[in-house]
């Protein structure tokens, strides 16, 4: 399934944010991680652990103060279509139909004429046949997220970056879309990096799970998911692994809260609890 060839290399990355008063928040500290080609890797952690920042660094939407993020040996400097991104809110262009939204990558790259026949394939892939002419306000949040995935995939990116894409959806739609994402990954073989706070989702989808801690944001542990490709949420191994991830996260949370000085800034790991 996953070849050993490294696609994305994150080494020694630091990212500090300064607010208007000049107070520093360390979003990422000395983060190292290699992502292999074709792999499904998930960043999981409490809010404020820098998982989204890390994903945005890979996308080129943000840059580190020190350290290097590179893809196939090339340092990432700016966003590009070979790193497709799916936002938490689908961020579809409301003035374009489903079909036109999916086509926008082709138009931006000026390959629309040659590749427009693919649009139908991607609409089929995400299961939205019949909704080609609908506008974003006419479809549900889950459908919008499917369109956002297709819109990124049509560029055949080297990696698909998913930033809590299912976070705003209801539980039922979320499970449905997890199955879709898994199917798409198996079908296309694209490398996928997912950011989530849902343990169940992480175990269901990933090859590896990078557990992150907050303040400063760093990767505390990487867990390999050795489950068979057909994943069953009620499977014993699945449950054991889920518990293991959760324990690591709670440990990371404790480790983190013991460092806190201000008791009002209690960490929220409610997102983690939800998934159980």
């Amino acid at each position, binding site marked *: 399934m996953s070849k050993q060839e490294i696609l994305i290399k994150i080494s020694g990355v630091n990212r500090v944010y300064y607010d208007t008063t000049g107070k520093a928040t360390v979003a990422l500290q000395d983060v190292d991680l290699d992502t292999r080609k074709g792999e499904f890797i998930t960043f999981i952690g409490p809010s404020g652990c820098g998982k989204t920042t890390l994903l945005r660094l890979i*996308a*080129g*939407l943000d840059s580190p103060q020190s350290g290097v993020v590179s893809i196939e040996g090339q340092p990432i400097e*700016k*966003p*590009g*279509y070979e*790193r*497709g*991104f799916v*936002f938490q*809110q689908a*961020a579809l*262009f*409301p*003035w*374009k*139909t489903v079909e036109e939204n999916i086509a*926008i*990558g082709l*138009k*931006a*790259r000026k390959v629309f004429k040659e590749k427009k026949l693919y649009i139908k394939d991607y609409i089929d892939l995400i299961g939205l046949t019949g909704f080609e002419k609908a*506008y*974003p*306000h006419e479809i549900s949040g889950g459908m919008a997220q499917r369109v*956002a995935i297709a*819109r*990124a995939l049509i*560029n055949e990116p080297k990696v698909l*970056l998913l930033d809590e894409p299912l976070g705003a959806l209801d539980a039922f739609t979320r499970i449905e879309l997890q199955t879709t994402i898994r199917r798409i990954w198996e079908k296309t073989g694209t490398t996928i990096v997912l950011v989530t706070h849902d343990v169940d989702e992480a175990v269901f989808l990933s090859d590896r799970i990078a557990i992150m801690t907050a303040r400063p944001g760093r990767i505390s542990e990487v867990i390999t998911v050795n489950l068979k490709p057909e994943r069953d949420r009620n499977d014993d191994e699945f449950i054991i692994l889920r518990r293991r991830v959760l324990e690591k996260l709670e440990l990371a949370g404790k480790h983190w809260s013991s460092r806190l000085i201000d008791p009002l800034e209690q960490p929220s790991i409610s997102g983690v609890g939800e998934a159980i």
Partner: protein
Amino acid sequence: MTKRINKKSEPEPKTGFSTYWKPQSGWWYIGAVISVLVALAVDILVPDSQFVNTLPYQIFLEIFITILIVLWVISVKANSLRKILYHKAQFIFAVGIALTVWDLLSTKSNILQLPFFPGPAQIISVIVSERETFLISSYYSLRLFFVGLILGTILGIGTGILIGWYRQWYYWLFPILKVIGIIPPIAWIPIAVVVFPNSFIAGLFLIVIASWFPVAFMVSVGIASTPKVYYEAALTLGANERFLLTNVAIPNAVPDIFTGLTTATGFSFLTLIVSEMIGAKAGLGWYINWAKTWSAYDKVYASIVIMAIVFSIILAVLNSSRNYVLRWKKGISK
């Protein structure tokens, strides 16, 4: 007490505020037709006490009644048309009553006296007898209006894009736009009549000014307020800066272009009529002023009626094109 359940009508939505509604009754529509018939009968049967050619008014009412009946016949098969007609029935009824009362007070009894308060028959008679003048005046007004509005809108969109997209342009142009934009365009009239060679170009200048600023302002706001996530999404899909402008920022500003255009249209109507009243030798504004000097108030009222019709049509066309272009927006389409 009997409780009847009307299966055909849905219950009123409980939205917390009173929703606008009118009963859709066929009886009201019959009442509406009768009230216009009464207006016609009164005009034919009651003797005049003013010298007025009432024939055009009577023909107008006859056409009105014919249209009401023809629409009703068509609506027997077209459900949506019938709903609209029945919804408007009370209003048409009131119009019939108002025409009757007005006619009685003026032409029929001379309580409202000529020339300052003409009756409906007199106004319609003037519109018919002066139709050529009105056509020519409307033509001149509309020519000035559209050339000015189109030029102003093009300039406005251009300026708005520059200000909204480029920081340098924003820095230099936005303060100027803010200061000049709040000056009522008609304040430029004394300057315009001196600077420009003829009244058409002077009027054009004023209308361009009137439409330029609201459009420029709204477009710049629309472009500057594009959500960052749209840019980010486009960038990760392979967009370059030019693509961000043409395919993200400008489409995002289209609703604001229409808001600016609606304001611009209103300003332009005002500027058009005022500038014609002061400087021009043609057009509806000029005609009103000319009629006033002859104390021909029936002609003044007639031009006001014509303006109301022409401007309403322009606004209706603008509004429906807006609804078509913005059909992607929530709450715009049906």
